[in-house]
């Protein structure tokens, strides 16, 4: 029997030596794993059924590996995306940090400037307290500075006034431009109207021409009828309706 041929030999004699004794104390290095190997299929036992069974097993294991591979691919792509996002985050963070560093630098510079100014004024004040030649000079220069700064303020005010006037003028120019635009629009509309008028005149002229033609046609037809009646030799004065027709034909349309 095929199934029986696959039965392994009795398991007990093929045991490998069991695990080495365990230390009672928990040790950091784990105990090596002993291996017990069961008897294997002998080459002589192989037959078609066993080979088929092995093939099925291999297929099953292949499916398992394929599934794991697919899962890992997805994991890998997700990981890549996460990495890219992290990189972007880091870049933006570094930008922010650089900006804050710049701000801190500027504020430090301003503070050192203020500090220097305070130190200089303090030194000047000390010098002024001495009441000697230097202090007199310092006072004079300070007065001069005061005068100069007054002059600067005046000039600045003048400049401000001029700027205001400038803005006024600009505003007026803007208003004028808007008006100009409106006027140009009006001109455009009137031009359009004028272009439309001659067209209507043309229409009426063609109508008149047609009317004239019709009138001439009716005149010709009237004459033809008159001549027909006269030429036929009928006494049209006897018949009342015929008389009315002939008299009506007398009224020439063209004369009107």
């Amino acid at each position, binding site marked *: 029997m095929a199934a029986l041929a696959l039965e392994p030999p009795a398991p007990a004699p093929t045991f490998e030596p069991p*695990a080495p004794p365990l230390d009672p104390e928990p040790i950091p290095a784990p105990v090596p794993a002993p291996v017990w190997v069961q008897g294997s299929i002998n080459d002589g036992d192989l037959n078609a059924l066993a080979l088929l069974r092995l093939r099925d097993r291999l297929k099953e294991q292949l499916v398992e590996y394929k599934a794991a591979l697919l899962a890992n691919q997805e994991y890998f792509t997700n990981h890549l995306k996460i990495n890219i996002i992290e990189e972007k985050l880091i870049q933006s963070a570094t930008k922010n940090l650089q900006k804050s560093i710049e701000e801190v630098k500027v504020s430090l510079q301003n503070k050192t400037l203020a500090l220097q100014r305070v130190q200089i004024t303090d030194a000047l004040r000390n010098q002024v307290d001495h009441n000697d030649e230097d202090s007199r000079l310092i006072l004079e220069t300070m007065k001069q500075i005061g005068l100069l700064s007054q002059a600067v303020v005046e000039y600045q005010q003048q400049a401000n006034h001029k700027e205001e006037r400038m803005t006024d003028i600009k505003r007026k120019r803007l208003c004028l431009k808007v008006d100009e635009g409106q006027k140009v629009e009006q001109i455009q509309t009137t031009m359009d109207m004028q272009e439309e008028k001659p067209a209507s005149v043309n229409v009426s002229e063609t109508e008149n021409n047609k009317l004239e033609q019709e009138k001439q046609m009716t005149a010709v037809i009237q004459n033809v009828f008159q001549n027909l009646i006269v030429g036929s030799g009928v006494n049209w004065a006897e018949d009342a309706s015929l008389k009315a027709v002939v008299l009506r034909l007398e009224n020439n349309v063209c004369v009107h």
Partner: protein
Amino acid sequence: MAVLRPLDKLPTLNSGVLLLVGSDEALQQKLAEAILQEKKDFNISIHLAASLPLPSERDHLRPRIDLVVFMIDIKSKYSLKNVEASLAHVDANFFLGKVCFLVTGVGRVNACSIETNAICQLGKAYCSPVLFCELELEGIRVATAQRLLRMLQICAGHIPGVSALSFVSLMRNSDDD
């Protein structure tokens, strides 16, 4: 610290590899002998370890491990702690059906020092089935060996059409009920 991975080695032809992790060595040996005495048509190798990680110097000799069984002795809290520490060295892919918790000593309820609820929580957290058994009794030991053997066959891919993942999802459904 080597992490145990399920698929980083090629499987050996016609064989299944079981790893028993537990602090009680005598029980491990008893269970291993019981499993080896079962009737089967493929090679079984059973590795015994007190805790994970496994020593890395013998890593190249070790075959691919198909099923990891964590043995928890319900009478000692140390075994549970040992298992919990060992779980950190197992790759997450193992928990797709290739891990099983075996609770031993369930027969002696008076000597219990671990709540079964805690073990069930552990099994739920790691998405792995929990088997309760009493290895001192001959009949239960044989039944447990048969169950583990069947699980090993599934995990090693010997049963066409049934993968470890589908098996463990079946087991979990019955647990939730």
